[in-house]
């Protein structure tokens, strides 16, 4: 009887516990707290793609993906706790995608010591692009400094190539994240002769009257925004209130989701935001997600976020992680890779148009290659614009490259300083 009970308990534990998979991917999500509205669609996209691979393909290279979710609430301390609690899951986590610049900064030394790669897609420490210093951190396909340059290039294109004497204001979240583009914008201001005004907004950004009164008084030609969460909605509403032309208001990719514009209604029409991936749900991969994940009742969320900007971004992050796993498997000849092999796979990742088309995502993201020297991709992005009537962002430019002349110099300077402070010998 006792043996039978033990056998039953063991069988139940095996059935109820996590799959005995060898490819553990951790989703440090935030479905609660002030940024939940953004965290939910990203996490849904990230998880649904891995679920699709498990259900449709039986995993990657014959290995099922063991997806572990940990709630951070966008809180740095909780994010670190999640990392510590999950890094040993299922034989060891392969990669982390913290979706928070604050958490990323705390995890860089920890992940480096533990030998677990971080993928901070479009956020985090920008100079981590220099892979010779930041061996375990990757921020492809684009970073904040690329974003700053892409925005200025778009303004240059709008103004016929000359923006000398123009005024550009940056409304930014007064945090490590919001301050990231300042140095690049200052360099670009010197190069192109525009006047830069900095307008910090304190967390959470519910109150921005002073900043927008200043914008109304000083009448900048363009306003750039580095916001997140409620700061975006309030800024766009305040811009509407002071009748600032929406087509001259450009947000970074974290200020360009449906959540950000809907509160302002029809008057937000024309607002622009940068992006490093395509929009909408008109891609073959979504048919598969619907069939194998949503209809099968295995979606991470309610299945109502598919095709939104942040769902697409979460899914794209999962696509890039999955392709890095495939690359690592090919390189090592092992299907059950470890975190070091994962890192090698990320460092040798090559995303081509043909590969994206084969994945059911034609023209979804720019082509890029990762190398020892370059963990940040090639800095390609595009501009999207809110169509209030259609209720969606639309891509209004092709992908174009950021000003590598300035950004490469800044990346080298910043990463060199980090290497000196931390006694790191550049690898390549």
């Amino acid at each position, binding site marked *: 009887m006792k043996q039978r009970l033990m056998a039953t308990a063991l069988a139940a534990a095996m059935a109820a516990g996590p799959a005995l998979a060898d490819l553990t991917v951790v989703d440090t999500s935030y*479905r*609660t*707290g*002030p*940024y*939940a*509205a953004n965290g*939910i669609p990203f996490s849904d996209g990230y998880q649904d793609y891995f679920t699709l691979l498990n259900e449709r393909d039986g995993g990657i290279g014959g290995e099922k993906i063991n997806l572990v979710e940990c709630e951070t609430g966008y809180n740095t301390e909780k994010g670190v706790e999640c990392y510590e609690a999950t890094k040993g899951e299922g034989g060891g986590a392969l990669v982390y995608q913290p979706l928070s610049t604050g958490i990323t900064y705390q995890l860089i030394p920890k992940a480096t010591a533990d030998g677990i790669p971080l993928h901070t897609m479009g956020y985090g420490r920008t100079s981590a692009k220099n892979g010779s210093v930041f061996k375990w951190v990757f921020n492809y396909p684009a970073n904040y400094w690329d974003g700053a340059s892409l925005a200025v290039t778009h303004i240059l294109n709008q103004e016929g190539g000359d923006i000398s004497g123009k005024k550009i204001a940056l409304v930014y979240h*007064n945090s490590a994240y919001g301050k990231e583009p300042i140095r690049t914008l200052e360099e670009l201001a010197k190069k192109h002769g525009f006047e830069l005004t*900095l*307008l*910090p*907004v*304190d967390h*959470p*950004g*519910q*109150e921005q*009257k*002073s*900043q927008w*009164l*200043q914008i*109304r*008084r000083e009448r900048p030609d363009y306003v750039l925004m580095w916001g997140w*969460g*409620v700061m975006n*909605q*309030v800024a766009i*509403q305040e811009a*509407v*209130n*002071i*009748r600032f032309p929406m087509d001259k208001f450009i947000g970074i990719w974290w200020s360009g989701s449906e*959540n950000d514009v*809907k*509160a302002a*209604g029809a008057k937000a029409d024309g607002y622009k935001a940068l992006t490093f991936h395509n929009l909408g749900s008109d891609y073959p991969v979504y048919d598969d997600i619907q069939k194998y994940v949503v209809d099968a009742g295995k979606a991470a969320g*309610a299945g109502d976020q598919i095709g939104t900007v942040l769902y697409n971004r979460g899914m794209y992050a999962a696509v890039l992680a999955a392709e890095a796993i495939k690359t690592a498997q090919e390189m090592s000849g092992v299907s059950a890779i470890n975190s070091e092999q994962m890192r090698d796979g990320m460092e040798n990742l090559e995303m081509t148009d043909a590969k994206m088309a084969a994945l059911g995502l034609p023209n979804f993201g720019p082509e890029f290659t990762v190398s020892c020297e370059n963990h940040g991709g090639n800095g390609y992005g595009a501009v999207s614009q809110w169509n209030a009537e259609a209720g969606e962002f639309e891509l209004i430019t092709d992908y174009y490259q950021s000003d590598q002349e300035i950004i490469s110099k800044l990346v080298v300077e910043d990463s060199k300083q980090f290497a000196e402070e931390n006694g790191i010998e550049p690898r390549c």
Partner: protein
Amino acid sequence: MPEQLIWGMEVFLNGLMSGVLYALVALGFVLIFKASGIFNFAQGVLALFAAMTLVGIMDGQVPFSNLINAVFGTEIYSFGWHVPALAAILLTMVVMVALAWAVNYFIFRHLVGQEPIILFMATIGLAYFLEGFGDIMWGADIKNLDVGLPQGINATIDEVTYNIFGYGFFIDNLDLWATAVAALLVIALVIFAQYSKHGRAMRAVADDHQAALSVGVSLNFIWVMVWSLAGFVALVAGIMWGTKSGVQFSLSLIALKALPVLMLGGFTSIPGAIVGGLIIGVGEKLFEFSVGPMVGGATENWFAYVLALIFLVFRPQGLFGEKIIERV
């Protein structure tokens, strides 16, 4: 007139309007503290919960739909109707009264006579519970709130000031409405507290629980009434803030704006909350306008709390608060 002075006047007026919005949040704190001595940490979350409930009712959203669907395998999200704003506000008030009753029945009735710190800790627990409960009930997505309040620049003020100063002042229509509503609310609350039977009972409970009980005042009834009033004030604050930014979790953080207002105006004075709000609103906006550019900006929160700190040093009971003297 110098340009800086004209702009300063515009900033001053906008500071007054912001101050009214801060005061709206502070009022809820004052009501509960006045009647029960509880510093209600959950006041911000009450505003969020009230606004979420209002939008949910207006949009005909099925409460707990995700939970129901997950348990029963259904696909129910909406009743398919739209409730007019006024009716939805009344229904939300019913929910807030029910919540007030539940808060008293399940929490505070068991804590009568406990130390203030215990009551404060209970409100922290309540705040976390309500955050999660609200999410499960109505979902964590950002909800648009439109009860018909106008937003954007007031054209008349813009035109009049332009004719006088050659520069049109920006005053948000929503802020003007908030000011009018706040004024009515304060007048109603003062009349209620001074002249109604229940208002006098509320003040009696505030002065001395035991003495009020001895003359037949029901402590339970008064506490439910006060939490209901705080819920109503939270609903008004939630409508004003939620109209601007959409109803989302961050609404609960507006309580942070009320703390310096309370320190300044006093925790026990309804007019104090208003005056404190106006001083903080005007002070922080003028400071940001004049000193902000010299120090890199984002001085508003800093200024509000520093001003509150100064008041704590020189007048700990606030401008209108009661000086509490405890004798051995």
